């Protein structure tokens, strides 16, 4: 019987699963479908080519093999898709593969009652970051001197972005080196600290798998009771074999995670410093967002945005049909989202004018976190700006006999 916090090396017992490093994720998903624990698996598979990841809803376990492996150019976010197109998993049970940003987005949508997390099994994935497909191809052409059409596999390993060609060529370049030149991972990935998303049910990856199982097993950490039950079920059903992880392996995994978190924090510092402070920062944001063409991409793709009647579409707040929209459009986004931004980067990816929306939002989120102590995406703790019934709230404030709102709300002086 496993429990939250337990860690294993796990690998598939199923002969035709050739997953990434042991195939544990694919095997667990297979078990979940075959045992009817879930109605479907929502995961990602190769689309047009190795640089393109498309989401896929799998109901037939035989189709899981197409989703095996990793796609480092898979920059998409799954939870918003669940909310928009799968009725928030309210009438179906899903297993979903989640990078850190996916996991955080799940919680934020769940808090806002847009996703029923009880109906979702989250299979977490270690993530060192993803690379935008077109930039990856440019990088491979210019820095690696390889035709991207010849690439059959790509990997991020030991701080390098590595490509393998169809005739067996292998080439890796240090991510740091690439990123110094503006290439490499997406900027939000560079800032990210959620490398092993333990807010999922089971988190899997290959960090810390050493010894004879290196490259042949997945490192699995149980993160919830639901996860424990599932893991045991998979083992019992014979799809998964396990062993205890090597002591040194645990150290290595911790080390990698900490190095990446440190890198994330450093990148935050550098990137946030570059947009200035105070009025300078505001001016910079106003200049950049002055190119906005109101495509609504940021809103449609943001996992925190879900309102049917979006304030940005209210004529008395933002004049309709005006390009660029008044700065109020951006301010509504900042005011409503900043406390809960999970730095998923979708708003920057989608922007047709290359406005670094995610950088601006994340920069504000870290300040709000310092002020209010709320860390989004970790659990079901409600956001700082939770909905309050106006009449009840006014009554409550009146009853305090004081007009000092900050104290009343945050209880500083009590």
């Amino acid at each position: 019987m496993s429990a939250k916090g337990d860690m294993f090396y796990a690998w598939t017992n199923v002969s035709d699963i050739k997953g990434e490093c042991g195939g544990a994720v694919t095997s667990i998903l297979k078990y979940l479908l075959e045992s009817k624990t879930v109605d479907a698996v929502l995961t990602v598979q190769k689309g047009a080519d190795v640089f393109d990841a498309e989401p896929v809803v799998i109901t037939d376990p035989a189709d899981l093999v197409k989703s095996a492996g990793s796609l480092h150019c898979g920059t998409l976010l799954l939870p918003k898709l669940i909310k928009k197109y799968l009725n928030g998993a309210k009438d179906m049970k899903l297993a979903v593969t989640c990078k850190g940003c996916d996991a955080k987005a799940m919680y934020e949508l769940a808090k806002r009652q847009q996703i029923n997390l009880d109906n979702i099994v989250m299979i977490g994935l270690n993530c060192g970051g993803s690379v935008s497909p077109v930039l990856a191809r440019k990088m491979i052409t210019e820095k690696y001197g390889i035709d991207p059409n010849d690439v059959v596999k790509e990997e991020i390993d030991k701080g390098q972005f590595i490509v393998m060609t169809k005739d067996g060529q292998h080439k890796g370049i240090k991510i740091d080196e690439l990123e110094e030149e503006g290439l490499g991972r997406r900027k939000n990935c560079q800032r990210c600290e959620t490398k092993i998303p333990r807010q999922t049910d089971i988190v899997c990856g290959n960090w810390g798998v050493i010894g004879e199982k290196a490259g042949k097993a997945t490192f699995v950490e149980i993160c919830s009771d639901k996860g424990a039950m599932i893991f045991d079920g998979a083992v019992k059903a014979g799809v998964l074999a396990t062993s205890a992880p090597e002591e040194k392996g645990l150290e290595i995994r911790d080390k990698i995670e900490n190095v990446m978190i440190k890198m994330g924090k450093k990148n935050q510092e550098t990137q946030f410093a570059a947009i200035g402070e105070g009025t300078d920062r505001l001016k910079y944001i106003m200049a950049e967002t002055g190119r906005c063409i109101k495509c609504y991409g940021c809103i449609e793709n943001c996992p925190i945005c879900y309102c049917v009647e979006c304030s940005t579409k209210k004529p008395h707040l933002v004049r309709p049909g005006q390009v660029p929209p008044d700065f109020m459009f951006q301010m509504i986004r900042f005011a409503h989202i900043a406390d809960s931004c999970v730095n998923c980067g979708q708003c920057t990816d989608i922007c047709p004018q290359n406005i670094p929306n995610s950088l601006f939002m994340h920069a504000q989120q870290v300040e709000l976190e310092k002020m209010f102590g709320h860390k989004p995406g970790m659990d079901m703790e409600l956001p700082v700006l939770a909905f309050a019934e106006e009449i009840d709230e006014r009554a409550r404030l009146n009853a305090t006999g004081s007009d000092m709102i900050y104290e009343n709300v945050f209880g500083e002086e009590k």
Partner: protein
Amino acid sequence: MTDLKYVTTTCPYCGTGCSFNLVVRDGKTVGVTPFTRSPVNEGKLCPKGMYAHEFVNSPDRLTTPLIKKDGKFVQASWDEATDYIAQKMKTFKPSEIACLSSARTSNEDNYALMKLARGVFKTTHIDHCARLCHSSTVAGLATSFGSGAMTNSILDIEKSKCLFILGSNTFEQHPLIGRRVTMAKKNGAKIIYADPRFTPTGKQADLYMQFRSGSDVAILNGLMQIIIKNGWENKDFIANRTKEYEAMKAVVMKDTYSPENVEKISGIPAAQLKQAAEWIGTSGATAILYSMGITQHTVGVDNVHSVANIQMLCGNLGRPGTGVNALRGQNNVQGACDMGALPVSFTAYQKVTDPAAHKKFEDAWGFPDGICEPKNGYEVTVMMDVLTDKPGELKALYIMGENPMLSDPDLTHVKHALEAVEFMVVQDIFLTETAELADVVLPATCYAERDGTQTSTERRVQKWRKAQDPPGEAKLDWEIIAMVAAKMGYAAQFPWKTSEDVFNEMRMLTPSYRGMTYERLDKPEALHWPCPEETHPGTPILHGAKFSHPDGLGIFFPCEWKAPAEVPDAEYPFILTTGRCLWHWHTGTMTRRSGSLDHEVPTGWIEINTEDAADLGIADGEMIKAMTRRGEVVVGARVTPDIMKGVMFMPFHFVECAANMLTNNALDPVCKIPEFKACAIKVEKIQEA
């Protein structure tokens, strides 16, 4: 369990050729998500693309054929409708029939209609809305360079050191090309923007030149004079790659085109002209982006020639970051032209009057009774004139996916023209203003319901992939055409089972598409034409070593500035210019049925300069009367300092305040494009009774 699929396809709106994924749930298109893999737009979209799913399953999609009986539309079966069409069409002589093809449908659909027109109806009269937008480009660049298309690719715009944007509000009309402008600027390029309106694009420019609509040749000649006077011209390029330079030089060096005179003609201060000329002439890699502001004039061809002239003068062709970048409007207007839906050419601009080309198509198609005569036919703007001025000459009109009742100039004239047609068939997805006048309406598929190809402004041929079934009994456009052809006895010449069959027949006759196959086009990068063999990688940048004329040389065409056909006078004291806005597409058939887009801009407006409005006593939002010699509309005023004093602007999307009620049907003599961009207008407050 919900069935959820993502289908990658290309956008049905502008000519940029963006891709996105359609989200299909249980067989119905319900949303759009990013396709980050596309080299063109990298997953990014403008609002039209973002909401491109909203009109697809609109309840008023055409679902059955309709036949007009006693002035009302009655539902009919496909058999009934196509029998009726065949029976009627057989009563007309070839010269009495005209066809309008569609810049919105696929290459396969356009090829099919072209074959129907020339092979079945055997008429010479086939055209489409390219006439109204880039016919100046096709005619102008074909004579300057030997090839009438955008010379460079969208991707290489960001490598430019200087971008001169003239007659294009790129941020609103080609937003994902606007992104490349932003990227060029971040890379240090100088952005020069010339427009009577200080648009969102203008606001990002390093140099904004406000000018009077219709003074482009003067401006370009003036810039060339400054460049030559300073010795900034590219002497090597001129000597080795061009001819007729001296004739052109003689014209631009005239005093008429001195900076001071050009300032008088255009309104651009001489100092700005000098700055622009320096940047253009010395950057090393200047790209020009242009669109309707250049083409939609009675001197549209002259304007295009002048753009070609200045780029040849400075050697800004054939390399990344350079080029004459004509930004084509419609999603497949480039393809419709390439497919020969033009009165002067078969596919790939092979001339109808060339006996070799005529024989090639006649032999390949195998119509037992031959095809049309080897003569040029009427352009759509000329068709409208013939219908009103020479009644009885044109009797039948077959229209696919076009709405001239809103898109053509002088709508009163258009209405008279179309009402004079004895028998009209319209194939469309909605009952448009034009379809209302038809005798038979045929329900067609929209972009989400078809496989096929379309060609973007950068000559990239990309796939449409079917995401859902069409509503009711709607059919693919080429399928409908094949049915009509079969009813007329020509089933053998239209044997296609799939759109790929159509494409493969077409490419055998089309040198620039010959090397393309569906398999090759399936890749995200697809292929730019010309692509003459199946191993050819396609051609992102044209004119690298030689121009497309037989001797490989580009030709300078000297142009003198001429004023627009109708200029302001005492009675009509302002210039009216027309155009588009970000939110709507052309006649609004699709975008006005998309809730998100309609919410932003539910109706039209007329832009009036703040000072002019004050003089006229007109307030922002006030409903006023706008009048030209052609007609009048009631429209809301948008008072803004962003438009030049003396100029007014209206978007043409809105039937209830249709800008084309006011525009002038004056045509460029060579390419027959109307002067949408300049005529004379007056406005009045509405007197309360």
